[in-house]
């Protein structure tokens, strides 16, 4: 079966239409079929509709994604309650241990992102992976730092990533590799991203799955939940009325 390649993390500002257009066109040119741009809590419905139209023009499937950066556990729970039914993918940017643990436990969270380059403040460890494996969250890796960092910083980052990917694989967490870029020139072809993943320990099919099957599965699961007639995973209302 042909793989559907996706990039769930294009950092396009929905207000900057020309940049969004450039990024999305480049993604389509490089062979992606599904993209998500990073939306915020302030993004208006009209802006989302515009980005969706831009994606449709170049033949891309648009996924609405929101990145949450809560300051406390309570704020995270409040935001999840408020936003879960509005977005297809919810990613929690884990900047503190408290947030990371709560996000890993919560089944409403789709992706866990650890953006900090300081290895002492990256909280993806075995305990985090164990919590996430019981929930539904996947581990997201952005390749942008690999492209923009140099020297010792890149070495340290790769070393952290290699350890985290090994832990995620041990606990069978879905790994999603995204670009995380805001400039078209930093976008890479899906197979190039898969090969880049080999330098932090994701090889062969696992690397390809991280840019195709795993993100598509996350989106498919949420679209099913957000669709009409959903009752529980695998159960949906197909007919309603007195004659049933």
């Amino acid at each position: 079966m042909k793989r559907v390649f996706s990039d769930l993390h294009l950092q396009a500002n929905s207000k900057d239409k020309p940049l969004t257009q450039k990024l999305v066109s480049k993604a389509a040119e490089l062979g992606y079929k599904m993209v998500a741009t990073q939306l915020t809590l302030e993004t208006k419905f009209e802006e989302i509709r515009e980005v969706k139209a831009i994606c449709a023009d170049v033949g891309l499937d648009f996924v609405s994604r929101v990145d949450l950066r809560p300051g406390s556990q309570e704020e995270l729970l409040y935001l999840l309650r408020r936003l879960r039914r509005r977005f297809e993918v919810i990613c929690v940017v884990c900047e503190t241990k408290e947030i990371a643990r709560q996000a890993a436990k919560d089944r409403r969270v789709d992706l866990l992102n650890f953006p900090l380059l300081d290895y002492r403040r990256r909280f993806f460890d075995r305990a985090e992976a164990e919590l996430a494996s019981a929930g539904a969250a996947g581990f997201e890796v952005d390749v942008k730092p690999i492209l923009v960092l140099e020297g010792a910083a890149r070495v340290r980052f790769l070393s952290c990533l290699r350890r985290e990917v090994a832990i995620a694989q041990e606990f069978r967490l879905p790994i999603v590799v995204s670009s995380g870029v805001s400039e078209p020139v930093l976008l890479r072809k899906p197979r190039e991203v898969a090969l880049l993943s080999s330098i932090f320990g994701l090889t062969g099919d696992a690397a390809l799955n991280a840019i195709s099957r795993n993100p598509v599965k996350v989106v498919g699961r949420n679209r099913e939940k957000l669709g009409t007639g959903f009752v529980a995973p695998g159960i949906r209302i197909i007919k309603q009325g007195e004659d049933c």
Partner: protein
Amino acid sequence: MKRLKRRYLGLQLDVEKAPGERDFMDAVWTSVTRIYGEYGASLTSLALISYDSEGRTGVIRSNLAAVENVRAALATITSIGGKAAAVHVLAVSGTIKALRQNLES
């Protein structure tokens, strides 16, 4: 002695102003050396076969065993000659003739 198998990579440069041949190969060697070190770079047997600055395409040769490493290193190129750039692999082939046929089709 067993003959080493090679692969030819057809490349497309994504850059506003086409760089010179020397700048291009410098960027390739720098990226391979940064990612895999000098020892790793020495195992790739990299060589420039042809370069078309107008068409922004190039063909390089690598060892079969190191071709995936070279492709990963090429993906990390973000600038050539001080200008923002990207290098995309268009096709990989065992002979130059087959590569050219692949690129034409």
